[in-house]
């Protein structure tokens, strides 16, 4: 029962990502070519609502269903890892037109070829874990 609610949230997420067309390679290309407002509108609206909601959560010290005060864990301070890691991810995002969420939504939609992207993304994360200590962070 504890996990069912996350399954439902995931289903809603899959439907939203599909209907927003954010899972489409074409939409991501259109975004990186600055030729339509669609993706910027989606991400921008989510962030505007997000900023307002997070501010309200903090102000009212809202609690989750288990009674714990909701907080988003801050990321450690650094520039290099976010910039370089971000660039590497951005290369993959533009190439496949998918970030991790949309990869699996695409699999569900029926684009079986995305399974290859998913498997290699897992391998990519594994490789990062192996060489992590040798990289600047």
């Amino acid at each position, binding site marked *: 029962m504890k*996990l069912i609610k*996350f399954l439902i*949230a*995931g*289903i*809603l997420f*899959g439907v*939203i990502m*599909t*209907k*927003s*067309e954010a899972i*489409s*390679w*074409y939409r991501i*290309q259109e975004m990186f070519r600055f*030729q*339509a*407002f669609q993706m910027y*509108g989606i991400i921008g*609206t*989510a*962030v*505007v609502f997000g900023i307002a*909601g997070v501010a309200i*959560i903090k102000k009212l010290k809202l609690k989750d*269903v*288990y009674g714990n005060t909701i907080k*988003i864990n801050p*990321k*450690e301070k*650094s520039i290099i*890892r*976010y*910039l*370089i*890691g*971000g*660039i*590497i*991810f*951005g290369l*993959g995002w*533009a190439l496949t*037109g998918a*970030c*991790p*969420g949309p990869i*699996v939504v695409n699999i*569900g*939609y*029926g684009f079986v070829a995305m399974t290859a*992207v998913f498997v*290699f*993304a897992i391998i*990519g*994360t594994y*490789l*990062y874990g*192996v060489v992590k200590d040798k990289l600047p962070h």
Partner: protein
Amino acid sequence: MIELIQQPWAWYVSGAAIAAIMFLLLFFGGSFGFSSNLRTICAACGAGNKTDFFKFDWKAQLWNLVFLLGAIIGGFIASQYLSTDAPVQISNNTINDLSKLGFAAPTGLQPTELFSWEALFTIKGFSILAIGGLLIGFGTRYAGGCTSGHAISGLSNLQWPSLIAVIGFFIGGLIMTFLIFPLIF
């Protein structure tokens, strides 16, 4: 009503709905960060035996794997019941640019040039998907998050690291689109 849902949703509806998912996860005691699942899957497969980065209580992240499973089901439900097979209405400028790279105008949600079975079983097609996957998996973990964790959650929390990461996402995306695409397509 069902016909309304079957149309592609307006950006403001989609954006608000994505923010709602983030809040739903926060109220459920989780958080909105999809790429963490890739690390969890590595740990669940036993990668922690050899590498410390994967040595953690991955079962505590089970909720996020269930969210991932839901996302797959959601994609299936959307394709079966909530979609028309109409092509994605991208701008004419994008169609023109992509045609110069050898991509036909959209006939559905995704280009068959990249995601059909035929494409998957060519060396070039498979390499594109494999290399893309490696870059995504490596880059998201190096950057500590992807679009959901940084661009949505992180920016909503006004975190500087997330803004740097998002700038990185765009630098990488622009390099791929404008410098590398002309070389490979």
